[in-house]
């Protein structure tokens, strides 16, 4: 066992945590650091961690660690040592011992230090409007130079990653399980897109399975990587609120997108605002809260305002979401013309189809 910090220690501790199916943060604190813990003699180490000597020795066994590193190499996973972690992440209380990163980590890692980094998190079951807002916010921020971080969960997380990718930006997904698990399965396609453009990271060994208790721990990395955390549609006890708490503890910016007061969907986000978090109505709110040299002005021109028939439909929808049928009745336009106008507005990105087959207007710029 080579003493001192290094890739071996990261892999060894991840293997041990995997074997024991728990985290070793407390043991690392007791030993005075991850590197120290990894370099302890098996008997001493086992006592600190509180496990069998054989277990400890087995995980730290030089041959097993070497095999594990070879496997990382084969599977395309980069092992990031603790002193190569992104700067912001090192400030986290209980920072990860290291990271396993897949995709284009070498290209992505410097950006996490140089660019503004924004975490966008929220409900796994968002409304269509919430998901659309997350996508649009991520796209705007990415176009202005930010790296978008989220947890690759369904719902808001996925929408945020997609928005950033669609805008041609960078986005980092932090997993609550090992890289070997395609979880959640439904985001497998999104995960491939992220791997091609940026990176997927985790502190867990490749085979570690997703477990409920690992997601809050994952959230500390999400918050730790970012300058600001934006919460969209968090319910009362959402994990997104844990991420926001981590951000606040670190003295980072936490913002929430307000929701309708009676909506259960946004109860958590609204509570967050009440307890002092900033309000996020668009990318400009994030930008004004996060002073950074890395911001650039997006060169995408604002879409031209709709005219004629489309203007009329858009005007109606800005008041409230409506179904196509209702639009054609209120505006006295034929169903064919209504459908055409809605398609045009949808392609311009000014409306989207939400629940109950109602169309919602998107507010831009103003």
């Amino acid at each position, binding site marked *: 066992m080579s003493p001192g910090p290094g890739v071996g220690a990261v892999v060894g501790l991840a293997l041990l945590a995997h074997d024991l199916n728990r985290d070793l943060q407390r043991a690392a604190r007791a030993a005075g650091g991850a590197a120290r813990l990894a370099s302890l003699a098996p008997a001493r180490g086992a006592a600190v961690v509180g496990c069998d000597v054989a277990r400890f020795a087995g995980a730290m066994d030089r041959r097993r660690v070497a095999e594990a590193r070879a496997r990382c190499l084969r599977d395309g996973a980069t092992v990031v040592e603790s002193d190569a972690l992104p700067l912001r992440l090192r400030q986290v209380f209980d920072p990860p011992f290291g990271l396993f990163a897949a995709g284009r980590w070498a290209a992505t890692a410097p950006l996490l230090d140089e660019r503004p980094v924004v975490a966008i998190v929220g409900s796994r079951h968002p409304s269509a409007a919430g998901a659309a807002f997350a996508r649009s916010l991520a796209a705007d921020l990415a176009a202005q130079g930010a790296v978008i971080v989220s947890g690759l969960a369904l719902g808001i997380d996925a929408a945020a990653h997609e928005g950033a990718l669609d805008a041609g930006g960078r986005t980092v997904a932090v997993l609550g399980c090992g890289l070997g698990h395609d979880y959640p399965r439904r985001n497998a396609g999104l995960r491939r897109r992220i791997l091609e453009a940026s990176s997927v990271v985790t502190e867990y060994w490749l085979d570690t399975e997703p477990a409920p208790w690992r997601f809050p721990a994952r959230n500390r990395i999400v918050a730790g990587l970012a300058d600001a955390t934006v919460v969209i549609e968090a319910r009362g006890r959402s994990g997104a609120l844990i991420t926001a708490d981590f951000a606040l503890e670190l003295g980072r910016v936490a913002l929430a997108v307000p929701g309708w007061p009676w909506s259960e969907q946004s109860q958590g986000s609204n509570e967050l605002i009440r307890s002092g978090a900033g309000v996020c109505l668009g990318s400009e709110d994030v930008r004004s809260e996060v002073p950074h040299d890395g911001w650039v002005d997006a060169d995408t021109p604002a879409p031209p305002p709709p005219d004629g028939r489309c203007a009329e439909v858009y005007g109606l929808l800005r008041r409230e979401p409506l179904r196509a*049928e209702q639009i054609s009745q209120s505006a006295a336009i034929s169903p064919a013309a209504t*459908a055409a106008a809605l398609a045009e507005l949808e392609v311009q990105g000014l409306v989207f189809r939400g629940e109950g*087959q109602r169309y919602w207007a998107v507010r831009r710029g103003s």
Partner: protein
Amino acid sequence: MVCAIPSPTLVGLDTSTVQVEVDLRPGLPAFSVVGLPDAAVREARERVRSGIVNQAYAVPTRRIVANLAPADLRKSSAQYDLPIALSILAASGQMPAASLDGVGAAGELGLDGVLRPVPGVLAMAEHARRCGWRRLVVPCENAAEAALVAGGAEVVPVRDLRDAAETLAGTREARPVEAARGHDGGAEPPDLLDCRGQSAARRALEICAAGGHSLLMMGPPGSGKTMLARRLPGILPPLTREEAVEVTRIHSVVGLLDPGAPLITRRPFRAPHHSISVPGLVGGGRVPRPGEITLAHLGVLFLDEVCAFAPSVIDALRQPLEHGVVDVVRANIAVRFPARPLLVCAGNPCPCGFAGDAKGRCVCTPARAEAYRARLSGPVADRIDVRVDVPRLTPDDLMGTGGGEPSVAVATRVRAAARHRRGRGQVVPNAGLGPRAARAAAALDRDGERVMERAVDRLGLSARGFDRILRVARTVADLAGADEVGTDHLWEAIALRAPGAGEAR
């Protein structure tokens, strides 16, 4: 002495000749049927024996062998009763053997010697014409159907065995036959007037009828999807005479003809239940029978609750939708059925049907709803041109007095669109255009190109999705009587786009 008479036999929807030969040999009295007969044919012995006796003829007290040639074709119908009985009569000298020259026959005998109708007589009459037979003897009930074939064999309708023997021998006058006409009476087909609200879905029906596009309707239960679909045949152009005969032929083979009105003049509407099997839908069986998709040929195939069909059943639609035919291949037989229906699917947005309900009545987990919808994605979704949402009706719609257009008005526009299409010099319906033909028929100007560029960019259209929009836009333009596809037509087609495999929905 050997006597023979041909009988036309069905192989799928096609026909071939089975030669029915009877030989009377000296020996102990016996009666056997050879030539790969199945149970129904083997039992012909009993029916023929009783039929002959009860018609006051005599069963020869000799060894009777009936052979059905060719021997390698499986025979599975009771239609050989009549030819076997006639051959026995001729072979035993109870009727002149010469009267069987150039005569084909098919019919099932009752024990009293009265004939029962058999399926597929229209196809048999066509076969008789092709083979140049002089006369075709069929049961009375089938005569009007057989007479639909003009310029073929003389149709001889007969009531019973004696009637057949004497008419052929010339000692009895042949009955007159009249070709079937479509029946004008009967229940009126459902009218669009009955549907409330749903203007978007009505418009989609009109477009599908005009261009032959397949349609997907999504909406909660009770919003009227089935009602709308049932009204689609009523706005399609009426069947031409050739088409009517084609449809009648198929339904005749399956035995679905109404004996009172053996010519089908209305477009068929088939709505199989979602528990249907693959052979039930596309055809199959040891002796292949057409499935629902063939029965809906030139009409409407409606798959209600499309997400509840077995995935294998939905996948089986692929080849027929692409090529307009079904090839059913079994160990010793391969047949081809026509299958060119207008496909209409209706689905709920989730298993309970209430996804997105304003009152929050949906009880499905998102994963379950997603898995449910995923059943429709993939190869078949790729072949659906038009998708329309059919939302729950509002109280206003329900209280209103209906107020939609009658089917006649819509049908007039649909016919006008078809006329306009033919005026442009295009024979195939727009839905049948291939990628290159679609791009030629819906040539875009600068503005149109810009619209499509933006749509591809924003909506992530696949190549297939792109062509689908062009085809639908061409139909919208035809309905508007426009020669060129304009931006408004494109936008409407984009609004009706059905997300295909792997596209965002």
